[in-house]
């Protein structure tokens, strides 16, 4: 073997570098970095919402105008879907295929019900005259910030449902085993983040008066 070929060979044999932060995979570190960036998007929107609200003296009382019984249930639903997600990951880790698929399906159903209820809520609010540019109760920014914040979060839930469905389909093909469950862990991170953000949105938009 010539020297050049030996050098080439040694290059080919270099194993892929392991990430120092998440030894499981680079994908997991990638998801964390994405979520940190996404958290800044939500943080910026929430800070902007707070600033607009603080400088609007005629801000409507969200408790009387938006109502919290439906959204409290939606919060509970997202928490439940987070639990089914960790159960799905735990089943995947232990190689329990049926349990894994069932819990993943339950998570998808939870997300879908959340989106349906949000669509119902938006329909109800728009029929009461609340839009992006005005509402019957006070500052027009109330509607703007409400639809932007809950809409941005809703898009994340929708994206999460699509993402989870893709993972479910490859799970049905038997791609995830006790030795290879990393993609399930990564989709779980995204889904819990969506739940975490909703906890904050629920508090700042619906509960604080």
């Amino acid at each position, binding site marked *: 073997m010539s020297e050049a070929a030996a050098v080439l060979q040694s290059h080919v044999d270099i194993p892929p570098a392991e990430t120092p932060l998440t*030894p499981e995979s680079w994908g997991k570190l990638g998801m964390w970095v994405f979520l940190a960036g996404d958290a800044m998007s939500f*943080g910026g929107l929430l800070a902007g919402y707070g*600033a607009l609200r603080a400088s609007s003296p*005629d801000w409507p009382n969200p408790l009387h105008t938006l109502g919290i019984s439906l959204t409290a249930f939606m919060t509970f639903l997202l928490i439940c879907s987070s639990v089914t997600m960790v159960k799905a990951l*735990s089943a995947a880790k232990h190689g329990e295929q049926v349990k894994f698929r069932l819990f993943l399906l339950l998570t998808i159903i939870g997300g879908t019900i959340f989106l349906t209820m949000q669509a119902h809520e938006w329909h109800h609010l728009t029929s009461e005259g609340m839009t992006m540019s*005005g509402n019957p109760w006070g500052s*027009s920014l109330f509607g703007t910030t409400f639809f932007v914040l809950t809409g941005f979060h809703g898009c994340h839930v929708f994206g999460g449902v699509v993402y989870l469905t893709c993972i479910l389909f490859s799970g049905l093909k038997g791609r995830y085993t006790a030795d290879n469950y990393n993609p399930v862990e990564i989709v779980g991170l995204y889904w819990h983040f969506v*739940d975490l953000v909703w906890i*904050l949105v629920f508090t700042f938009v619906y509960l604080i008066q």
Partner: protein
Amino acid sequence: MANTHAQHEEPNYMNIFWALAVLTVIEIGVVYLPTARLLIGFLLVSLACTKASLVAMYFMHLKFERSTLGIIALTPMILCVFLIFMLLPDLTAYNKQHTPTVKTVVSEHAETH
């Protein structure tokens, strides 16, 4: 190569679920407390932060990850707190300037948009 790291003990997820559910009920109860709005707001924000950190620590397994990953996760929080402090002087300036006729100015402002 995958999943060769030391496996951590799985937390009891149902306990976390109950904690989150109970904290949500407390949050809704706090809204109707007959005390100052500022105190209620403070309580609500603390409860929400507790719930958010429970989700991050146990569901997202941050408690069992390397601490550098925790720093990545904390960065946006720190930046958001900075952002709020950066917005504060602007807000107080606005409120001082507009306090006497704040209602009309805001409604005019809203109409022009």
